[in-house]
């Protein structure tokens, strides 16, 4: 009997959590938004997601197997998450070739060149998206009007997201006029909450993304620190701008629910690998993303800033990990 006994250091029991479980948890959390996407864009949504996810998984498999001669790790689910997130931030009428190219950049350059899961400094899906955005700006800013399975791709409108309309008209046309003038066709609060507006495939339905956030928090896949600090920072910053000059700034709630902010704050910025490890670090990272996002949205050349904000703060993450330490137990002497 003695030979059969295992001897190992403590602890002898482990939690049920595993990397694949966490990754598939994120996949589940993305499902409400995926369904909303199908509701708004019909087949196109299904096709974009299918192409993106298949490509990321296949590229990861091929590169690991034949280029790096490693055992492929596609079962851990991280490539699926990257594929889904990439699909979520593309316009649904993007040509298939570009989606595949984006997936190759995301997995090949964004993730595997650095050594695969756990070693990439930047969020792979965002690397893919930003590559496409900068290389193919016209295709990446042409949005079809959501119309379910009847969505027509021939009358896609160019650049007509609420944020891009705002970006073009800041300091030219007062906000009140923008919102009410039929020529601009700005969506109201109800539309932006349910997702009835121009935008990338998965970013438009605020309610579905919030449902995903609730799932992530309940399953304890992520903590509240990153999404909360980003959203609160954006609310405060845009709130200050709005209060200072209400005629020329959209109100905070409008900022919160338009563009890729919720998708970015809930699913992109919280990517384990590229965000800080400690709660304090996470809050600083979140504030950084919030401030940069608003700066780019309001004062930059691009209508949406969350993608660049996240990538910039990804780059700052190693510094945050080095300099921002969690508060140690017994650091401050407390004696009641």
């Amino acid at each position, binding site marked *: *009997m*003695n030979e*059969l*006994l*295992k*001897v*190992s*250091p*403590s*602890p*002898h*029991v*482990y*939690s049920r*959590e*595993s*990397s694949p*479980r*966490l990754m598939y948890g994120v996949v589940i959390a993305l499902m409400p938004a995926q369904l909303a996407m199908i509701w708004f864009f019909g087949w196109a949504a299904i096709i974009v997601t299918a192409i993106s996810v298949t490509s990321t998984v296949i590229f990861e498999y091929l590169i690991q197997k034949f280029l790096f001669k490693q055992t492929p790790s596609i079962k*851990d689910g*991280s490539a699926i998450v990257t594929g889904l997130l990439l699909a979520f931030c593309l316009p649904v009428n993007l040509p298939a070739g570009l989606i595949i190219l984006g997936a190759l950049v995301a997995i090949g350059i964004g993730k595997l060149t650095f050594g*695969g*899961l*756990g*070693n990439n400094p930047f969020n792979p899906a965002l690397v893919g998206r930003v590559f496409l955005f900068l290389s193919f700006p016209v295709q990446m800013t042409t949005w079809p009007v959501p119309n379910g399975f009847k969505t027509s791709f021939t009358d896609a409108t160019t650049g007509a997201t609420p944020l891009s309309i705002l970006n073009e008209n800041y300091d030219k046309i007062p906000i009140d006029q923008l919102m009410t003038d039929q020529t601009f066709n700005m969506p109201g609060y109800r539309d932006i909450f349910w997702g009835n507006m121009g935008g990338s495939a998965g970013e438009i339905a605020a309610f579905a993304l919030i449902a995903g956030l609730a799932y992530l928090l309940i399953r304890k896949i992520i*903590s509240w620190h990153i999404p909360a600090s980003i959203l609160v920072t954006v609310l405060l910053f845009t709130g200050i701008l709005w209060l200072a000059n209400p005629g020329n700034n959209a109100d905070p709630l409008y900022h919160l629910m338009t563009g890729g902010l919720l998708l970015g704050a809930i699913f992109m910025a919280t990517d*384990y*690998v*590229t*965000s*800080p*490890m*400690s*709660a304090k670090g*996470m809050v600083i990272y979140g504030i950084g993303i919030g401030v940069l996002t608003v700066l780019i949205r309001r004062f930059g050349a691009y209508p949406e800033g969350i993608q660049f904000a996240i990538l910039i703060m990804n780059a700052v993450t190693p510094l945050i*990990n080095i300099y921002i*330490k*969690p*508060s*140690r*137990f*017994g*650091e*401050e*002497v*407390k*004696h*009641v």
Partner: protein
Amino acid sequence: MLKTFPKGGVHPSENKITAGTAIEVLPLPKQVIIPLSQHIGAPAKPVVAKGDKVKTGQVIASSQGFVSANIHSSVSGKVLKIDKAINSSGYKQVSVIINVEDDEWLDTIDRTGKLKTEIVLTGEEIVKKCAENGIVGMGGATFPTHIKLTVPPGKKCDVLIINGVECEPYLTSDHRIMIEKGREMLTGTRILMKALGVSKGMIGIESNKPDAIAHLNSIASGFEGITVHPLKVKYPQGGEKQLIKALTNREVPSGKLPVDVGAVVHNVGTAYAVYEAVQLNKPLIERVVTVTGKDIEKPGNMLVRIGTPLRSVVDAAGGVPENTGKIVNGGPMMGKAINSLDVPVTKGTSGVILFSVDESKRKATNPCIRCGKCVSVCPLGLEPYLLMTLTEKEFYDRVEKEKVMDCIECGSCSYICPADRPLLDYIRLGKSETGKRIRERKQK
């Protein structure tokens, strides 16, 4: 809202299978193996020789130096030999091996079984009694109790905390003592309070033991100054620093002792042993051990003589199940896996857990996904992932700067890690290397 410590912590499945099982007296074994080092500090020096007849309760090895404790014979019989025998860490260690004959106790021990709540001895006499009777901390650390009762000059202690948390899954020995020996345990608490000269005694119990909380609450009014405090279930609340924080909101500074914030913590089992030592003049020769596991036939709590081989204890619970893969001496979070049931029960043995082959498999290590869960569960606010990486790379200067010596080895980081990384294994290595470097520096 129930109190708890604020930073970190995990909640493993409790698996308190034996919580409702009354303490049973284990029949005497044929032979006992009594190690001479069952406490932190210098091993005791044997005062008996091969062939000597000994009585139950007789001193067989005397305390050596300041931090050390007396060892008593837990049985009557004949000393077979003084030889090296395997201990729970897998090392061979000098032990007194006694063949059991009858059960003849020393006359000085009160065995009438009557409850004695009146405390007649003075503080100094109490400390002396604890030292004579070989009392050590019974929660697992086995630090000699009489030293903890001597408040160092220049320091002041104002509260005694009794640790009834039992945050380790599976274990229930303290739970049963609180229910079955509540009055004795509370008397022991009063004795400890008298020795320390404090008027406040706080008993911390996790809320998963409502029967113990209710019972102690109902009898605590008869014991001046003692209050019972239910705590939220969270591991490692039984850690000294965590318990003090949960109950008094005082934080023991890094590298300091509880007494530096005016608190002294003793375990429920220790309080009961102190009662027996001071009121009944009974040395520490037996303790309650939880024998448990999901497949074991008759899991239970047993009153076992020190030195009894674990084999006898497990046999009394129905023997080793067929598919056993690992046997742990202590709790599943901090206990030691043993490779033989010949290991004896010692003063620090709170339980023995038998895990099936499936439960004892360690999973393959995967790459760190930097989820930060180890950081968020660390009750000391350390960064386990960083300590592991720095230790792997042998950057010991940085390991020390990152406060590796604060680690209490609770195992929460390894428990939670979704990539199954052996965080605590590496941190232990980092700690031992850092400890070596600190000692070398001091010598220079």
